[in-house]
């Protein structure tokens, strides 16, 4: 299973075989059912999760509502709080949306490795940079694309998630009202179907 994480890491930054060995040693294989919270057990320890199977969402509660800020699936990483500057409790919770398996690494053990291996220091920096870029992209998406376009882009780029994530959560993630989400989904699917019919493609 580590090979999946190894591939992921090698795309970001090359680390030595020895460093891979040490990383592998601190990976914990975890299995969760559906709608299981990840950080209940991790109350006093932060973990970074690499998903080998399943979907996890990152969310916070506001009054009675959930605000979903991130969705991650196979081959992606997710954590509740990425910074070591946490002087406050984590705002976010992590929850599985279907049966999920992860390779999880404790921040404490990772930092111990970090102290000894320059390759891992570089990897951290590059990982952080990726997260920084992703967060900038997120901010941009909110203003760059109108609701309908955000929805269309999502349907285009992550169609698998439509079937795996409850509609209410998807709507929150895209920052769209649930009713608007339903309406747009119907309208955009119909539009797509019409296009296919007109081009004599079989409608599945």
């Amino acid at each position, binding site marked *: 299973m580590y090979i999946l994480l190894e591939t992921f890491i090698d795309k970001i930054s090359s680390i030595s075989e020895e460093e891979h060995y040490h990383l592998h040693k601190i990976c914990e294989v975890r299995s969760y059912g559906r709608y299981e919270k990840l950080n209940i057990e991790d109350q006093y320890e932060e973990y970074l999760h690499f998903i080998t199977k399943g979907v996890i969402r990152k969310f916070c509660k506001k009054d009675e509502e959930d605000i979903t800020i991130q969705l991650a699936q196979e081959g992606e990483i997710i954590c509740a709080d*990425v*910074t070591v500057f946490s002087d406050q409790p984590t705002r976010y919770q992590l929850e599985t949306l279907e049966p999920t398996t992860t390779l999880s690494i404790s921040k404490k053990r990772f930092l111990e490795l970090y102290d000894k291996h320059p390759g891992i*220091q570089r990897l951290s920096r590059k990982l952080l*940079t990726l997260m*920084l*870029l992703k*967060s900038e992209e997120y901010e941009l998406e909110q*203003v*760059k694309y109108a609701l309908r376009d955000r929805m269309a882009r999502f349907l285009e780029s992550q169609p698998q998630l439509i079937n795996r994530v409850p509609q209410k959560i998807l709507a929150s993630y895209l920052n769209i009202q649930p009713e608007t989400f339903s309406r747009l989904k119907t309208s955009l699917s119909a539009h797509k179907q019409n296009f296919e019919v007109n081009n004599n493609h079989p409608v599945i």
Partner: protein
Amino acid sequence: MPIRKSLHEIGDYIYNYLQRYMDVTREEVQFLIGFLELRSFNRKEKILNVGEVDQHLNMVIQGIVRKYIEVDGLDCTLQIAQEGHFIQSDRSFHEQSASEIVIEAVEKTTIISISHQQLQRLLASSDRWERLGTNILMLLLKHRESRIYKKRALSSREYFMHFLKHHPDIIQRVPQKYIASYLGVKPETFSRLKHLLKGKRLYKNNIS
């Protein structure tokens, strides 16, 4: 606040700033300063234009800087940076690609910057700076995540109150339409909220 013209004077400012978040020595800050440059901009001058590659990571030393994107002719403010805030086009800087966003000085501004080339040199100079560099990146990420959280989790009104509470002088220094855009409220809503606040005298009084 007096305008700090020399990098040497900036040293204290940077030392005090970084010390809040990480263990760094004065000698290390002195070393860092060798990689930095001070840049000044006039009001409304562009620090980065669409299509340009962002060559700098910046921190505002004095003044106010705005980051925005134009969507269908509409100006959408992404960030308003005051003293002590970082501001750049991350994607453009890290990928060395053409920027989609614009960065401009809202008032006469001095920023301290590190160029892409100098940053690589700094990070390669020692393990220690590889790590400190990572810590600073984490700071950037923390600030942005904080912004994203507030924008999603707070109502417009709550965000407005929170924002003004933490930036009491911002209304005098930044055109209202930009603040409204940043908070994600219509200008009319912004005016209404402002008058509500005025009634409650919750912010300092220099407003006409």
